[in-house]
């Protein structure tokens, strides 16, 4: 599976989103599941999947699916 596919899977699993949900519209707190606890869980899952440790500023800036995809490039996830 491609890395973009893995990222997509993590978002869908973390927030219980089905295939119909357009991830490009997903932003922090736009759904109840992506709350503060969900955010930390999402970051932990992304770090585990790609064996990376994200910097504090990147975790704060990670406020949407699209930003997440762009941010992960910085960590070699493309």
């Amino acid at each position, binding site marked *: 599976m491609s890395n973009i596919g893995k990222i997509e899977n993590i978002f869908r699993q973390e927030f219980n989103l089905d295939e119909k949900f357009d991830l490009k519209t997903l932003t922090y*707190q736009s759904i109840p599941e992506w709350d*503060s606890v969900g955010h930390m869980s999402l*970051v932990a899952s992304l770090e585990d999947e790609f064996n990376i440790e994200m910097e*504090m500023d990147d*975790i*704060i800036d*990670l*406020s949407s699916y699209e930003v997440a995809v762009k941010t992960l490039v910085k960590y070699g996830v493309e």
Partner: protein
Amino acid sequence: MELSESIKTLNFVELLEFQPNRYPFLMIDFVTEYEPGVFANGFKNLTNNEWFFPVHFQGAPNMPGALQLEAMAQMLTVAITTLPGNKGKVTHALSHKVRFRKEVFPGDCLRIETKVISWKRGVCKGVGKGFVKDELVCDAEMLITIPDIFEKYLPKK
């Protein structure tokens, strides 16, 4: 086995520096040993004078399960608030999964063992067990946080 030099105890007065809860909600009396960021063990002695026994229940006093859970969470908190920079910080519960196995009565000593599974960015995942006379009476998986730290990592709205 040689114990780590960092293993220490906290008496009731020392404990207050690392546990923000106070009477009538402080549910632990003594920390018999702890290692910051790793574990904290101790106990809560239950006398017939506990504030909850007269109402839970009249004629059949036993420690409310919610307070057994609170005792385990407070002990786990000590394992985190004893880390450098965390002293005196307030903690919040995020989620707990608990099982109550036996009733806890006046006169019992509730011995509590807690272990940190992970501590990252203000969030602690841990487990706790409560024993009376070496019998397991409750156990829990707990997620607690220090909001001061946790909130620094959240996106700004």
